């Protein structure tokens, strides 16, 4: 069955869905947004996520990424409220401030160097993360019982968390609400530029469209060449461990351990180069857990209920790539590994630029040519 669309977004994960949601919202009922997604068993990084909306470690070596992330953190609250009011799905966004624990002098020093470096790099824009010692950690979290090795942490006041699964749910509900045509089990098999616009072939028919957005994570790799893109997306496995629900620990989220609104504790995460293997490994789980037990020894009796592995969609410098094709106007690519943190700017800023067909310098800074 063949059809027409005003814009086809390829990818129904958090990146594709956020852009499509933004496009559908800007365009209103007649936006003609089609979203193509894979099926139930897709390699779906969106379903394996720590749920951090995180600034303080972002942009080391690329200031523009730091600014872009800060912008997202600044508008996440408004984005979360809007989508909750529209769909009834609460993403549970909280800007709590976030930590990165240091368990030795060496770790504390390395972290201090990074924070100092980033503060200098940020020059005119205030970079507000700082190092805090154990006493201040205890003041921030009066009920927390730290292990004796906890010396301190880096602290980012703009960091926070959300429920990544609820975010995906909310985005899909938002797509429906704004009249987007979401098509599951319909992966794009081929995208062909036409004299005018594009033709997207799926197992359920071909769609003709003047505009196409490639946001399919690892799936983008096999489609991008036809549109003149050449972005390398590297699969990096990340594993997480999720526990049963426990009573409120009164802790701030940290890179590696946080408590969700439901009460489960998420422990993570690994960075492994293993290709497209999404299996979890007991040894990795044990290693991650051992570290977090050094932070919170009382977690020892809490039970792990699930382990997960997902594949991050990384570029060489781990920063996003956004491009508008020069060769085929109307074609766009968006890829990043922080789809949750950047969901707000994707839905509000990037979608707007794609709608207008023109990238601002802020977005243009993420062209992939920097990686060549």
């Amino acid at each position, binding site marked *: 069955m063949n059809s027409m669309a005003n814009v086809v977004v390829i990818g129904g994960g958090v990146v594709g869905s956020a852009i499509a949601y933004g496009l559908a919202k800007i365009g209103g009922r007649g936006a003609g947004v089609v979203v193509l997604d894979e099926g139930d068993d897709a390699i779906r990084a969106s379903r394996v996520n720590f749920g951090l909306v995180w600034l303080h470690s972002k942009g080391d070596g690329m200031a523009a990424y730091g600014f872009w992330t800060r912008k997202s953190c600044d508008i996440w609250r408004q984005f979360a409220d809007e989508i909750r009011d529209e769909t009834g799905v609460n993403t549970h966004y909280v800007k709590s401030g976030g930590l990165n624990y240091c368990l030795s002098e060496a770790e504390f020093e390395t972290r201090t160097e990074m924070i100092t470096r980033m503060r200098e790099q940020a020059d005119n824009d205030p970079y507000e993360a700082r190092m805090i010692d154990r006493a201040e950690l205890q003041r921030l979290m009066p009920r927390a019982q730290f292990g004796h090795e906890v010396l301190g942490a880096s602290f980012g006041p703009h960091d926070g968390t959300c429920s990544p699964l609820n975010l995906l749910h909310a985005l899909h509900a938002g797509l429906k609400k704004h009249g987007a045509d979401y098509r599951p089990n319909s992966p794009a098999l081929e995208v062909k530029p036409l004299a005018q616009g594009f033709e997207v072939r799926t197992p359920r028919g071909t769609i003709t469209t003047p505009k196409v957005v490639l946001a399919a994570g690892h799936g983008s790799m096999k489609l991008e060449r036809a549109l003149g893109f050449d972005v390398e997306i590297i699969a990096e496995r990340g594993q997480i461990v999720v526990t*049963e629900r426990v009573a409120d620990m009164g802790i701030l989220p940290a890179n590696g351990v946080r408590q969700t609104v439901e009460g489960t504790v998420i422990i993570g995460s690994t960075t492994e180069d293993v290709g497209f293997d999404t*299996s979890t490994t007991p040894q990795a789980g044990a290693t991650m857990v051992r570290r977090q037990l050094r932070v919170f020894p009382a*977690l020892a009796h809490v039970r792990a209920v699930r382990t997960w592995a997902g594949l991050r969609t990384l570029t060489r410098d781990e920063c996003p790539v956004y491009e508008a094709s020069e060769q085929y106007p109307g074609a766009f690519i968006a890829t990043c590994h922080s789809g949750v943190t950047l969901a707000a700017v994707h839905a509000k800023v990037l979608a707007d630029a794609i709608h207008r067909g023109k990238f601002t310098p802020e977005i243009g800074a993420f062209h992939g040519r920097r990686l060549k």
Partner: protein
Amino acid sequence: MSSACDFLVIGAGPAGMAAAATAAKLGVSTLVVDEQPAPGGQIYRGVEQRDANKPGVSHDDWARCAALAQEFRASGARYQPNTQVWQLEKNRKVYVSDGAKASCITAKRVLIATGAMERPLPFPGWTLPGVMTVGAAQILYKTSGWVPHAGAWIAGSGPLLWLYAAQALEAGGKFEGILDTTPKANYVHALRHGINALRAKEYLDRGMALQQSVRKSGVRIIDDVNAIEAKGDGALNRVHVHTGRHWQDMPATRLLVHQGIVPNTHTTRSLNAAHRWDKAQHAFAPVADAWGNLDAEGYAVAGDGAGIAGAEAAAVQGRLAGLEAARALGVIDAAQRDQQAMPLQAELKQHLAIRPFLDQVFAPRAGLLTPHDDVLVCRCECITAKQIREAAMLAGMGPNQVKAFTRCGMGPCQGRMCGMAATEIIAHARGVSATDIGVFNVRPPLKPLSLAELAALQAP
């Protein structure tokens, strides 16, 4: 602490015991890990501790199971009880825990003999204290001699229901009545399998005798029940029963429910081994060859976990899997295996003859498979059928996206109780078959384990 063996058997029910005994007697280094404290699995639970002369025990085919347990104990197979398997890797590293420390067993062959579980069918009020399964009551009877004395109802369908009712009555138990949900039409449809079933006359005779003994006891039996609801505030106090065109309301303090048994596929699914939808048994089962081999190298399955065939068939399947393990490990050759297997295969055929008939008679009542919107389906995360339906329609795909959207299946039972119902509900809502919908992916650990246990896992 890590260890190694040639043949690792998971589970010590009839299939696991028979497989281990067969292989060990041929000289295969065999280890059986069992989450239970003693051999027997569910069906032969407490076999080594029970008194053959106690009332009701005769129905359990006690002599046969005691003989199998003795054979297993004497076979030379090592037995490690109270051991929970929590993850299997493709390379046959099997991760276990004794409750304090996780460890790894490396095996050349692994047999999954994790048996069956009762079909979990959500209905209104099924989470109320006072409601439990017939299988649960039978375990209490087998291990503790417990039978109900007042205010108890049995509801549902299936051979186990009648077996338990007969046992419990003989042991002095009392029931207010039995609410039989078996559709009358099932018996008519089953007649076409009647001739075949006659080849398994022993099974039929036993089944008929059990039903007759229950009916003769004078216990009230309400046939062709359409629907059941458990009522009460914080605990069961009434059962609502729908028959014909009206509801009846009965006082109750205990409701024992049963809707047949299904393969416990949690372990085989965790390997991402291929599974098929068995239309007759209305359940998923792993795809295995005649020896039980799965499409995961070096892994096999035997017993009810491969498809419901009953305890006696499970033991035979276990022996076949034990022979195949011995062959794969080079202890016997294929010709020796085939020769020893021949009488077993004939015996298995005999046991399987009754299945199409039983599957048809006790096929679950269609109306019970897709609960109403307000019924709680996921007991752990308190997710209703309505939430599942809405997420299914929004996602337009299967249970894994629905799980992500709703948390259905994310609690400690890891989808064991809600998974089949979620598949049915999604399939029904979207107008497609259960095969097209699939099931929850299984995430390790297969059972929750404490972070301390996990952290104790030593590097290889």
